């Protein structure tokens, strides 16, 4: 089809329009535009569902049948209104507004008109159906506009169906526009967006916000030059008790004398009426003249409060710095299990100037320390992640792996060698480690030994058995025997994999629906079935291929590593953190484990993609000089991947430090842990310090990483 044909006017198909009127998208599908039809059907079904669901959200409106009927009624009515207004618009365009400018204006007017008319006409209908004054406004309008937009999409679909041909698809802009509008209307309801509430209740946030925004008061130690004197009182006063000694006036320091020093507490009944206790005479001296003195009552467990309503608790000192007043013993609560004498303290205090000492407060020190922990956590996770993900990225780079090939025969031999070598390696490692006391005595050495022997043994025997069997098959054995060995070997491999998959199936699927006993019963059976299927399948494969056919073993490794990395990567670091906490307990180590695992997977993917996008030319050139695999990687691959590797590493470091602050929130240690604790204790100033430190660190890191990346790439 040429461009000219595409611009030619076409005839509208009424059959397609009619079909789309009945089932949205059907007309388009009949015309051959299947995906278009499906998209339209899905869109309308989604918005219909969302609108009904919105209505059904109302707690007093559980009748879905009624909702659907009401909705259909709404849909039909609004569609009728839309058609009516569109017709009106058409007439106006043809008769009155013929100039483009007036047409544009008319269009706007009619859109506004449509919205108003729909809202006005449909609201009463809704009110009668929904009959709930308060919420029906919000829900009703959502419902009306949701229905209107759905109806509009439906109408658009009918008109669209008329024009769609196998080789011609008109613009879908209208659908996209209407769809977005409907999404906003319905989405705001589903997510319970409530702007008035946000404005109304902002004021409560202000106090907390202030503390978070400017928390530096609690970041430093202030020396308080208060004038303080204390006196001790026993309450309640058991028979025979005399109370603490009465204070004496002093020469050089402030003093306060309370008599008697033993008395009864005031009591407050449930209505709030107070039965006053013993009245105390209070005298004081040595205070700053003419300055306000505050009285504080401190109960036996050390909580101080201002005794309001029990006498004068705030008054100026005299010109000589003395005062005299009376106070009932307030209704300080005492634990019902308290034993022995209950000694309260009366504190007379004159608040002086607070003096800045320049010393960091303990909270600030703690926050700084944890910030450092957090940064180190991110860095450690990045470093360890890089070291581990580089080899994995080579294994999951298709262009490198697809050149690793072996014959079927060598593969069979290799797999058996791999298993045998791993097994022998583990035995040797166990023997050696037993000689010095094993895992308990030297865990790291044992770990390393196992790794080296199992991996080394597996790889060594893989190579030996592979080449050995291949040599035997090619030089020594008759072809039929070689073929038979391949078939049997493959069948055993298939059986082993099938058995494992079968057991995994039983554990995975049955454990959801059935009891553990059933799983135990079933897993050998599913294992056997899996083994049988695997054996038959692989044997057939071996039968069809020749024993010396080449297969790309590299691709197996590639797929395996890729899939594993993808699974690990799709699990969020927060989840890994939870796993880490279960594993090693809360703290930075758990966070480190979480970040490292996720980093390995994420960087492994990014790295391997960088490797896959390199120029194959230099690899070819270096190979053609007789270089082996290692040399090819060092001289042809590494120079090409270095810049993206550095860029990705810094990018990940950046992400890790950010994430490590978040990981603390779930218990992964570091500043996040501190932050969530402070928030839960309502210590918003301290929380503010943490927030500030995180912000500063992240901003600094952002800058630094951008700088470094800019230099390298």
């Amino acid at each position, binding site marked *: 089809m040429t461009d000219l044909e595409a611009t030619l006017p076409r005839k509208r198909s009424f059959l397609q329009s009619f079909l789309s009127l009945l089932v949205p998208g059907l007309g388009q599908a009949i015309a051959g535009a299947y995906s278009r039809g499906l998209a339209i059907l899905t869109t309308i079904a989604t918005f219909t569902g969302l609108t009904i669901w919105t209505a059904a959200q109302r707690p007093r409106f559980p009748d879905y049948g009624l909702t659907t009927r009401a909705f259909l009624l709404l849909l039909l009515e609004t569609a009728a209104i839309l058609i009516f207004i569109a017709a009106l618009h058409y007439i106006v365009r043809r008769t009155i507004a013929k100039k483009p400018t007036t047409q544009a204006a008319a269009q706007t007017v009619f859109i506004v008109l449509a919205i108003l008319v729909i809202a006005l006409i449909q609201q009463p209908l809704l009110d009668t159906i929904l009959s709930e004054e308060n919420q029906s406004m919000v829900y009703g309008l959502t419902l009306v506009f949701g229905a209107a937009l759905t109806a509009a999409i439906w109408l658009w679909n009918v008109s669209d169906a008329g024009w769609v041909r196998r080789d011609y698809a008109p613009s879908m802009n209208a659908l996209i526009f209407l769809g977005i509008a409907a999404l906003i209307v319905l989405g705001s309801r589903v997510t319970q967006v409530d702007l008035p509430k946000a404005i109304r209740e902002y004021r409560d946030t202000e106090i907390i916000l202030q503390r978070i925004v400017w928390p530096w008061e609690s970041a430093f130690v202030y020396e308080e030059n208060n004038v303080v004197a204390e006196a001790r009182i026993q309450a309640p006063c058991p028979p025979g008790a005399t109370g603490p000694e009465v204070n004496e006036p002093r020469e050089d320091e402030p003093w306060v004398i309370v008599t008697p020093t033993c008395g009864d507490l005031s009591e407050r009944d449930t209505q709030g009426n107070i039965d006053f206790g013993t009245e105390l005479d209070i005298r004081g001296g040595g205070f700053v003249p003419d300055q306000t003195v505050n009285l504080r009552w401190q109960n036996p467990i050390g909580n101080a409060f201002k005794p309001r309503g029990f006498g004068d608790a705030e008054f100026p000192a005299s010109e000589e710095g003395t005062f005299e007043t009376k106070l009932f013993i307030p209704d300080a609560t005492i634990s019902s299990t308290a034993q022995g004498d209950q000694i309260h303290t009366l504190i007379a205090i004159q608040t002086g100037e607070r003096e800045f000492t320049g010393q960091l407060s303990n909270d600030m020190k703690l926050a700084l320390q944890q910030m450092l922990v957090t940064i180190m956590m991110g860095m450690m996770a990045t470093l360890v992640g890089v070291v581990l993900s580089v080899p994995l990225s080579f294994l999951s780079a298709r262009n490198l792996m697809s050149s690793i090939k072996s014959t079927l025969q060598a593969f069979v031999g290799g797999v058996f060698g791999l298993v045998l070598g791993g097994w022998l390696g583990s035995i040797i490692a166990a023997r050696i480690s037993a000689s010095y006391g094993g895992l308990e005595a030297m865990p790291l050495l044992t770990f390393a030994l196992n790794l080296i022997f199992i991996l080394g043994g597996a790889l060594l025997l893989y190579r030996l058995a592979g080449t050995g069997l291949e040599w035997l098959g090619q030089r020594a054995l008759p072809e039929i025997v070689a073929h038979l060995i391949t078939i049997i070997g493959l069948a055993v491999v298939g059986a082993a994999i099938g058995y494992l998959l079968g057991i995994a199936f039983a554990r995975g699927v049955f454990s959801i629906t059935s009891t553990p006993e059933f799983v135990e019963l079933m897993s050998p059976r599913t294992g056997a079935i899996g083994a049988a299927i695997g054996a038959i399948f692989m044997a057939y494969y071996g039968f069809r291929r020749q024993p010396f056919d080449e297969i790309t073993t590299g691709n197996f490794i590639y797929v395996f590593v890729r899939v594993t990395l993808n699974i690990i990567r799709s699990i969020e670091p927060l989840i890994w953190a939870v796993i880490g906490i279960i594993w090693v307990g809360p703290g930075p180590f758990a966070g480190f484990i979480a970040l490292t695992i996720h980093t390995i997977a994420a960087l492994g993917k990014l790295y391997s993609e960088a490797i896959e996008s390199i120029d194959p030319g230099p690899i070819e*050139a270096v190979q053609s000089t007789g270089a082996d695999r290692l040399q090819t990687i060092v001289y042809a691959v590494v*120079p090409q991947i270095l810049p993206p590797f550095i860029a990705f590493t810094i990018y990940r470091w950046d992400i890790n430090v950010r994430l490590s602050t978040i990981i603390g929130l779930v218990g992964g240690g570091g500043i996040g842990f501190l932050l969530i604790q402070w928030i839960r204790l309502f210590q918003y100033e301290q929380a503010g310090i943490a927030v500030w430190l995180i912000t500063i660190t992240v901003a600094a890191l952002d800058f630094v990483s951008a700088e470094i990346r800019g230099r390298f790439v």
Partner: protein
Amino acid sequence: MLKIENLTKVYDDGTVALKDVSFTVEEGEFLIVIGLSGSGKSTLLRCINRLIDPTEGKITWNDIDITEASEGELRRIRRGIGMIFQQFNLVDRSSVMTNVLTGRCGYVNPLWSLINYFPRKDRERAHTALERVGIREKASNRADALSGGQKQRVGIARALMQDPKMLLADEPVASLDPVLAHTILGYLEKLNQEDKITVVCSLHYLDLVQRYATRVIGLREGRIIYEGSQEEIRRLTDEQFKQIYGEEAQRMSVGPEGIS
């Protein structure tokens, strides 16, 4: 002597790149393979040093079977066969020196590559090789700072490091302008005549073929459709050339006489 017997290459997607190709290359020949893009020239050259594994057929070089060679044998075979490429295939981010030194990969212990070490002798050899192609002063430059002609000279120097008995050149001048084409082919000719290195080269342009080849093979859709000696190719007219080569054959406007 390079002997190719019934060579066939079918790619995984079913494309037949080479079909039953047989020919021999004598020691010291300058063999030029001509043919359209997609006629199988690159595949043929890459089969010779097994950058591509042939599907069927046999390639022997001085009585060593290349097609059956194991990994270790292949390494020894490859180091005796230098290769230069149309796109030069240098590692852009490495220095010229490093690029040239990679030519020795087939001789040094692979573990040395971990610390990027080459023996002193090899370094001296690299300087000599660079001097031979006239760009010794560029040794410490990064490869991507060079011009096209200089890059191809580095490519030749890299091949020289291998002490090659044979050179494979896959359209070595297709990315270069006519003047440079003669310079580069001049180097190859010099190596061919002075060092007695066998050259197998694929080319596009008739007058370059006439000027440098001692023997010519024409490929079309993976089959050999023409074989000619030096004399035969020199007598070839444009019309005949087009018949062998297809309608897109070109003659280059600048010969070595034209530039001096």
